[in-house]
């Protein structure tokens, strides 16, 4: 015990001595490339500490409460307006960020952060359907695989428990608009979901090996996770529902009460360097929104069907949005009914 106490004391002293060169990143678990962090630490002589969260809501609640000690957070696009509205983020000055121009024009004037005043791209991806083509031979770009499944897929379907993505997919499936409050549409959505749920095996995360091994034959899934499943089983394919599928983006931002502002700026600029953004992608398995990063990407990701959206399905994509509270409330009720 004594040795332990001494060690702790030493560690405490050591970290205090390095205080100038620190950076605290608050990010999704298993999402930050260790190689990239190591490179950043070496280049700028900064000690980076990463702390994990597992949902946007947890991150928001903790940052809102204050006293957390984080410098950087990586919320999804749907949460950026909320963070900004609560004055939790520091406004960026593009002139201070030499790589700001590297942001892909497509991701520059996004609805959740026009002109990229508060956040820079981290990773982006789609929510579509993963299908085992050995089990189901039909068209995979169809939400009906989940919402009105064919006989051979029944009881072998998983749906990621993301309320907004699943609701969004179902709303578009019945012909509604993103974040609709139209009761007629929502009633259809509820009926479709309640009926479909009977054919679902689970509503769960982290199913890569279950898809690979055949426990699951289809599901609502993230594109990166689907790609990892395909690595283990070549029959796994990723479909983009033609009625509409959500596109999400996670974004790095500096917190308004950050203690290591200079290092945070260095870091935000650092991840917009194409080579570094490619390192992030190679680790997290998603695209990054930085122009010119493709040439540094691993070969298999450049052409992966999970990352390169087919041209004819591009228009079906919609950018996930923050729904107004009163609409959100109805969604929660439907969601609860679905899981009761």
């Amino acid at each position, binding site marked *: 015990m004594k040795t*332990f106490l001494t060690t*702790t004391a030493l560690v405490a002293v050591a970290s205090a001595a390095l205080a100038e060169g620190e950076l*605290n990143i*608050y990010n*999704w*678990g*298993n*999402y930050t490339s*260790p190689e990239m962090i190591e490179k950043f630490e070496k280049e700028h002589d900064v000690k980076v*500490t*990463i*702390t*994990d*969260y*597992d949902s946007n809501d*947890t991150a928001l*609640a*903790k940052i809102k*409460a*204050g*006293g*957390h*000690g*984080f410098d950087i957070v990586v919320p999804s696009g749907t949460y950026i307006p909320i963070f900004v509205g609560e004055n939790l983020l520091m406004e960026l000055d593009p002139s201070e960020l030499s790589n700001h121009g590297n942001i892909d024009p497509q991701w520059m004037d996004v609805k959740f952060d026009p002109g990229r005043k508060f956040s820079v791209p981290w990773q982006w991806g789609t929510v579509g359907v993963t299908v085992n083509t050995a089990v189901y031979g039909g068209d995979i770009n169809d939400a009906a695989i989940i919402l009105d499944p064919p006989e051979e897929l029944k009881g072998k379907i998983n749906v990621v428990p993301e309320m907004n993505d699943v609701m969004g997919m179902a709303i578009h499936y019945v012909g509604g608009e993103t974040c609709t409050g139209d009761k007629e549409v929502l009633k259809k959505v509820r009926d479709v979901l309640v009926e479909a749920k009977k054919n679902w095996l689970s509503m769960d*995360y*982290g199913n*890569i*090996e*279950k898809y*690979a*091994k055949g426990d699951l034959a289809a599901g609502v899934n993230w594109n990166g*996770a689907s790609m*990892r499943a395909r690595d*283990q089983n070549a029959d796994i394919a990723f479909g983009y529902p033609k009625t509409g599928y959500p596109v999400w983006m996670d974004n790095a931002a500096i917190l308004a009460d950050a203690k290591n502002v200079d290092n945070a700026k260095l870091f935000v600029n650092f991840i917009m360097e194409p080579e570094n953004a490619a390192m992030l992608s190679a680790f997290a398995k998603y695209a990054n929104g930085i122009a010119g990063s493709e040439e540094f990407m691993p070969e298999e990701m450049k052409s992966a069907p999970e990352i390169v959206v087919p041209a004819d399905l591009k228009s079906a994509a919609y950018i996930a949005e923050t729904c107004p509270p009163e609409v959100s409330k109805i969604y929660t009720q439907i969601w609860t009914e679905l899981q009761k």
Partner: protein
Amino acid sequence: MANSAKGFDVRKQWGFTTIAAVCFVLLYLPVVLLVVYSFNAGTSVAIWEGFSLQWYRSAWDNQQVQEATVRSLVLAFWASLIATSAAVLAALATTRVRPFKGYSTVFAAINQPLMVPEIVTAVALLILFAGIKVQTGYTGLGYLVLAHSAFCIPFAYLPIRARLQGMDLTLEQAASDLYASPFQVFRRITLPQLWPGILAGAMLAFVISLDDVVITEFVKSAGQDTLPTYMLGQLRRVVTPEVNAISTVLLAISVTMVIAFFFLSRVKK
């Protein structure tokens, strides 16, 4: 001790022994699987793809997971120590006494952490501690130790209380009559008799702290991930056998300790 006239020993209830054996098998079956998969060549915790030590190497290289493991153990050590000490005192005050005013309130207060789902305490503690963090600037491990100690108290208290409830008062009375000080009575008479209860309570408190996810997730400051919160972060993406490897190392250490313990206790005999 001699067998009873009926021809069987109460220490050998075969039905009970069989169920106990089944119970041990059930307890260890998943652990065996967990250990097996720590040597998996694939990235899965559920599909066997051949033998490899890669997850041990990867855990060895992963500073974040190592720090989280050590932090979990340190936290569990302090929380169980504090919770058990407080629980012993509280058990002495509330057991084998005449019912006093406020007894049910005290009992309910001690067991309150059991009754509130973790997420609720977690959110409320977040609000409370964040205020203190902003005011004092202190963001150390103290908050987690305090939060863990609190929810460990009932887990330590109930076994100790159960033990204390049936304990014989006469010995303590006798010692008291022989002018032993209350502290002497406690140390020499009460404590040794109470020991199995304390050990049970402390071990429960330790594992409860070791397993906690939700409260830790909300109370932790920058750089204070524990093994469970690290795992929670992984859950959405890929759970690799890396943590199996770490768990196996911890298991190996604890099994070695138990074996050493066993031989020591035999030597003492």
